[in-house]
């Protein structure tokens, strides 16, 4: 059975360990991103998620609280979906023990939901190899991020979030003189990858995919040792870590909580630290901020991105097309032209 999740900060290995196939909802070919005609201000991505929930009664869905649109979208769901949907409370803060405990508690609660959905609660011997497989996949993709094109990494990340597996990267791209760009913003489902073609056609080269489920989503480093072996998991951020424990759920929760780097966090300094380091290392010359109409969280970052990274930012609104829109093409071409 497929269990879809709406944020990469819900650990797919936890879903898989309960016997389900985790599916990052943004990777779904069935995600229908038509803008909602009636309710003005509805994010097309959030609306697409709700349509998918209704269209897939046999699947499970883990929605997340990270924005109003999804949180209230959950409230709008039909009662009939009640048994197969779960709202995961992703904490917005991250510097306090309270936020950590909230995340840990939510992961345990998700486990109970998955059991109600027909899954089996995993013991350590089941959880460990699944965590290891996911960690290996992310590890390969993290390594690929240093070498393959941003576009290729986007495809690989999407595949990982759909299957849990890492396809191999590609050879480093030859230097072509194309303008190195970062793409930052909301989720970019495969149906909108036409945008990537527009960037390339206009003489740009994507070197950093900072969209919701892009390279950032590969950050968690989960090292769950086999039963009986001591834990020795490094922290990724230096945040205070509770004492080592045999409890695999807690280790998994801490690994994700420590890696969480997202626009909805308060403060959102982790996102900017992450971006700053990569923008500098990859010599990014311009940023495309991709956001859905109604997505305040990303839209509000345009000016801060300019100020923090000292680079020009092109604000692109997701529309109903496949990303190939003429309007987008013209604006991207003009943007890249100015960066040459």
């Amino acid at each position, binding site marked *: 059975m497929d269990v879809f999740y709406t944020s990469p900060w819900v650990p797919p290995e936890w879903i898989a360990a309960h016997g389900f196939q985790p599916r990052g909802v943004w990777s779904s070919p069935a995600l229908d991103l038509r803008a909602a005609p009636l309710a003005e201000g509805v994010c097309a991505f959030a609306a697409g998620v709700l349509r998918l929930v209704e269209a897939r009664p046999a699947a499970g869905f883990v929605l997340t609280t990270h924005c109003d649109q999804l949180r209230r979208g959950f409230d709008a769901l039909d009662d009939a979906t009640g048994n197969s949907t779960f709202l995961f409370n992703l904490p917005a803060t991250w510097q306090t023990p309270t*936020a950590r405990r909230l995340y840990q508690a939510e992961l345990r609660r998700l486990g109970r939901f998955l059991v109600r959905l027909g899954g089996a609660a995993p013991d350590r011997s089941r959880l460990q190899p699944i965590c290891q497989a996911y960690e290996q996949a992310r590890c390969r993709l993290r390594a690929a991020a240093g070498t393959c094109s941003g576009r290729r990494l986007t495809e690989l990340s999407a595949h990982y979030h759909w299957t849990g597996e890492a396809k191999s990267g590609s050879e480093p791209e030859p230097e072509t003189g194309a303008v190195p760009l970062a793409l930052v913003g909301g989720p970019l489902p495969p149906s909108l990858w036409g945008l990537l073609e527009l960037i390339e056609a206009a003489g740009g080269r994507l070197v950093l995919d900072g969209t919701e489920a892009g390279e950032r989503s590969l950050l968690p480093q989960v090292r769950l040792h086999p039963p009986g072996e001591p834990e020795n998991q490094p922290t990724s951020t230096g945040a205070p870590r509770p004492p080592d424990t045999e409890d695999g759920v807690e280790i998994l929760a801490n690994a994700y909580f420590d890696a969480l780097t997202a626009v909805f966090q308060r403060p959102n300094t982790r996102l900017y630290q992450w971006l700053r380091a990569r923008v500098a290392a990859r010599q990014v010359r311009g940023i495309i901020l991709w956001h859905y109409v109604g997505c*305040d969280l990303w839209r509000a970052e345009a*000016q801060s991105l300019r100020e923090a990274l000292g680079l020009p930012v092109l604000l692109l609104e997701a529309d109903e097309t496949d990303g190939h829109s003429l309007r987008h093409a013209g604006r991207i071409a003009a943007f890249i032209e100015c960066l040459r």
Partner: protein
Amino acid sequence: MTPPRKLSLEQWDERWRELHRGGLVEPAYGGPLSRHVAEEGDLRLRHLAFDPSPAALRLWNFLLTENQRLRQFRAGGGRLVGVMKDLGTVPVMAFALPAVRAFYPDGAWWTPCLMECGDGLFQHADRLGIDASFCPVRAMLGAFETGGHFPRPDLLVCSAGAVCDDFSAIAQRLETLGYAIAWWEMPRRRNPDEGEPACTLPGGLQAPQSQVEGVRDELERIGNLLGGLAGCPLTDTLLTEGVRRANQVRRLLQTLRNRVYGSPGAPLPALEMLVAEMLAIHFCSDREETARVLAGLLAETDRRCREHQWVLSPEAVRVFWVNPVADLRAMNLLEDWGGRVCGADFMITHALELIPEDLPPCEALARTALADPMVGSTRDRADRIIAQCRQFAAEAVIVSRIPGASHCAREGEIIRQRVRQELGLPVLEWEVPSLVDPLLPTLGSRLQALLETARLRRRR
């Protein structure tokens, strides 16, 4: 006896002179209302209609002098806390401390309306990258940067998590601009799972004990920051007293609401009720005076009820109002067209509930904060609205949409469906911008259609 008639600003000046000739004694912040136009640029007052009582005069003067009060307090050595988003909880803690006062920079929401956009706050927000796709609270950014609307607080506190995206994004932008913020986590309230330890919140909803404990821990952390600011720890004794005083205000407001909304005719207009309700969240920077202002309104209400003196025709259609309005004039318009507010959910219903006094005070505040209609399911909110519609015999519901507000994308439809299903009442979703004037013809016809539908239902 002639029933009280609402007054324009000019008429109020004349009445003010009359009252003074008759011996009216006002508090230090009193005076004719029109001075707020001349001195503060509150041009919108010229287009509003006001209740004619001295109690209403005191209410308006109290509201419109908050900035001066804050500055005087600061000049006297007091410390100011800018509380953002939680609407009603942290101010109770701040006011429990000596020499600390809290205010809501969010209140700048209404500044463009009051100043008829002559303040330039929206343009300022535009320049800072926060355009009209955000709700009017974006005016707050401009207010911080210009410094003319409230003093810069000594401490800024903001809840995060189950809050609207507009505010979360704008507060983050503020922090990026150099205003340090102490964030605290507000989880999205959920129903307890089967067998999960739970407790009852003020207002009757249930929440898992673990959520209450999380919020309590966060409030204790914020309490320590407030204590540091005051130079005096926020002890349980101080906080218990703060809760008791806050409850005095809440009790007064509850009584006022029940009298006004429950009476057959309207003893007070909707606009004054909106302002009165807003006092509950931060006491307009003077908790004791808030209580006196509300007591004055209650005395006036009681007198009018005894004498059957209604400000509107008893035939007016009873409307339940959902969400605050970006333009205060909208409340007048409803009444001009034959409606009357008989209940409201201005997103602060949790700040009207009594804070439990039989619990440790931080636990009690955590429970109250979790009762916030905006942190839980919109369905819970709709159920409360339905219960209040029943209590106050509402004949129609207006959900006023707030331009750009992230929660409005979904909540109106959810509320409409449930109200229709449970009560069969007509529901109108009405977007109220900061200045409604250009939209009056279309707004008027939609509003009249709603009221007409409600009247037809009466005849059936």
